[in-house]
């Protein structure tokens, strides 16, 4: 079983690299842009099997450590993108999404270790919405960047390399907006379950001697990251809904919010 898990762990980045090359070919050669990629569902199935195998091997769901979260994030981002690709029948944005997925999974595969760790139900109730939220933010950020690029190209009447290789600007705006809204909803759940999880963990870990709201610096930064994301995306949604902010501004906020959040989360790994 351990050998199978290890083999699959290294197979996955290669599969995503193959997908990246395929999507890159579509992007640069402008071929098969309106057809679904038959390879993506296959890779997703392999990835899901890998997580199942890992669960069996570790005796717990693989969502405790950073590299495990990254792998789940890679799977969920790819799965969300597959749904989008089927819905909009346009795979020109695929190369950017799959690049992010490949980076997530490659990092996860490289930093995998023989960790053990238990996880409570409260932890899962908190982590799963967080994964969905960050997945949506990642997809939204990618589409937001593409939206800003396409918007700028059209404003400047540019007919360069990107001109007809990017999806339509209206579609990119819609994808960015939908991802932002979905991410905000799940981040709301995440923020709401956070204090409950903290109270439970402190009560279980330290007994009566520890303050109920004691947090480690690493966890504190993650909490700040989640709340920051919630505030930033909330402001963007309110601005669009009530003040009719233009979509390019929303895309810019989405990209900025994702970047700030990721910096905080990655930074938390270096704290005690």
């Amino acid at each position, binding site marked *: 079983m351990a050998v199978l898990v290890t083999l699959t762990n290294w197979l996955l980045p290669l599969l995503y690299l193959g997908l990246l090359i395929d999507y890159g070919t579509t992007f640069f050669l*402008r071929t098969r*842009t*309106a057809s679904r990629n038959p390879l993506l569902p296959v890779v997703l199935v392999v990835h899901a099997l890998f997580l199942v195998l890992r669960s069996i091997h570790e005796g717990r769901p693989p969502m405790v450590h950073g590299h495990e979260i990254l792998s789940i994030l890679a799977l969920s981002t790819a799965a969300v993108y597959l749904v989008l690709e089927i819905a909009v029948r346009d795979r020109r944005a695929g190369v950017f999404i799959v690049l992010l997925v490949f980076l997530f999974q490659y990092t996860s595969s490289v930093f995998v270790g023989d960790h053990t760790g238990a996880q409570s139900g409260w932890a899962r109730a908190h982590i799963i919405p967080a994964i969905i939220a960050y997945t949506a933010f990642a997809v939204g950020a990618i589409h937001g960047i593409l939206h800003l690029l396409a918007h700028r190209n*059209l404003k400047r*009447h540019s*007919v360069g390399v990107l001109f007809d290789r990017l*999806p339509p600007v*209206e*579609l990119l705006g819609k994808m960015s907006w939908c991802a932002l809204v979905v991410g905000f909803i799940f981040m709301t759940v995440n923020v709401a379950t956070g204090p409950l999880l903290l109270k439970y963990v402190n009560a279980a870990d330290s007994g009566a001697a520890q303050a109920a709201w004691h947090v480690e610096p690493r966890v504190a930064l993650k909490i700040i990251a989640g709340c920051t994301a919630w505030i930033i995306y909330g402001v963007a949604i309110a601005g669009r809904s009530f003040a009719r902010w*233009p979509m390019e501004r929303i895309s810019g906020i989405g990209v900025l919010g994702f970047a700030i959040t990721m910096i905080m989360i990655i930074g938390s790994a270096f704290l005690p």
Partner: protein
Amino acid sequence: MKLSVLGTSHRTAPVDVRERFALPAEAARDLLRSVRAESTFDEALVLDTCNRTEIYLVADGPRDCMAYMHEHYQRLKQVSMADYLSAFYCYHDLAAAEHLFRVAASLDSQIVGEDQIIGQVKGAYRMAVSEGSAGLVMHRLFHRAMCVSKQVRTETQLSSGAVSVPQAAVELARQVFAPLAGKSVMLVGAGKTAELAARNLAGCGVGHIVVANRTLSRAQQLAAELLEGELGPCLPAEQPEPAESLLLDGVCVRPLRSPDEPPACPTAGPLTTEAISLEGIPQALLRVNMMICSAGSPDPVLTWENCSRILRRLTKPLLIIDIALPRNVDPRLNALSNVFLYNLDNLNALVTANLDRRRREIPQARAIIEHEVQSFGRWLDSLTVVPIIKLLQQHFEQLRSAEIKRYGHQFSDNEQLELFAQSLCKKILYKPLVFLRDISQENDGPESQAAMEVIRQMFDLDSVDGQNGTPAG
């Protein structure tokens, strides 16, 4: 077999010369019937378009196609080719095949990569088939031409990108909106280019056209004309996929887009139109997704003062294409977030970029054509062996019949003897026939000619009557 093409095109003659030698449908049919009746040439085909008139001829030996056509033009159109010799070109054999492949792949067209020519080539071929003037060589040549055309379109970018202002409008719309189906367009003014662009967009699924004009009655008239008129062709959004194929005499060719074919893009529903006066434009801006402006107005129709406040309220993109001169739209409006404003220069830059991209694909298209020309050449060479094979078969058939006649009475079962003799002759002939076919396809002319000469002398085929295989005399 000798293949020839004689023709005139936009590259060799101006339109006033080309029109003298044009062969529209009935004239082309007359020519094909004459060729069939006179038997000077075995096969004939006429390709007549607005940019070229070409006559393809096949004969079993050298023929003077120029003199032949000179006589026919005198008779059919009372015009002398001798007065316009420099307007004509004439190619033979592989050069003729290469010329046709270049024409079918639209490398010889005024706009490289245009896709109307393949429909015209197909139509010419169909006419020749219906008139009975297309034979073995024409079938092969034109089937291969259509396959070359399909291969060039699918493997290169030669046909991609807009190369006219109306097409550029559709291409821009595709970069902004997804999908086009169900979107609405406002047409300002009565310009032909703008109308063509609107028809192209309607052909791509745009559901509603608002026509704005200085006078409401004129706008209503234009709206009615748009509703009754033909929808424009829809550009493929990407490289053509080898989708559902159109079988042409058993050969797979790319689906062709001709005016009588339905648009490639699905529509959200039936097209609707609406007429408004120029004063109603600002209010209508929030209801449309796109504007095409071509009004002949000395002052801008959309100014910053009368439109910016309304356009700031837009929550969706608005694409404005201003092809009027002087411009109809204040260029400052492009600064608004949801407005994308393109003028004539911007569209021409897009068209120029696409034309440059198509030109960069020409070497790859030429390589495809060159490969196909070589293949066709090998096939053409293999035809020279056909008469020898026929003579050989006839000779052996005669020998078989003569021997059965001589010895058949000594056998009780003549039927079995016939079967035995046929089988023996086939087995003896099998290796020589395969040898002849292979050597004619794989080797250069002199070597295959030498091999055929050996066979001819070995079996004394020159003395065989081609009609029934018996020795002549």
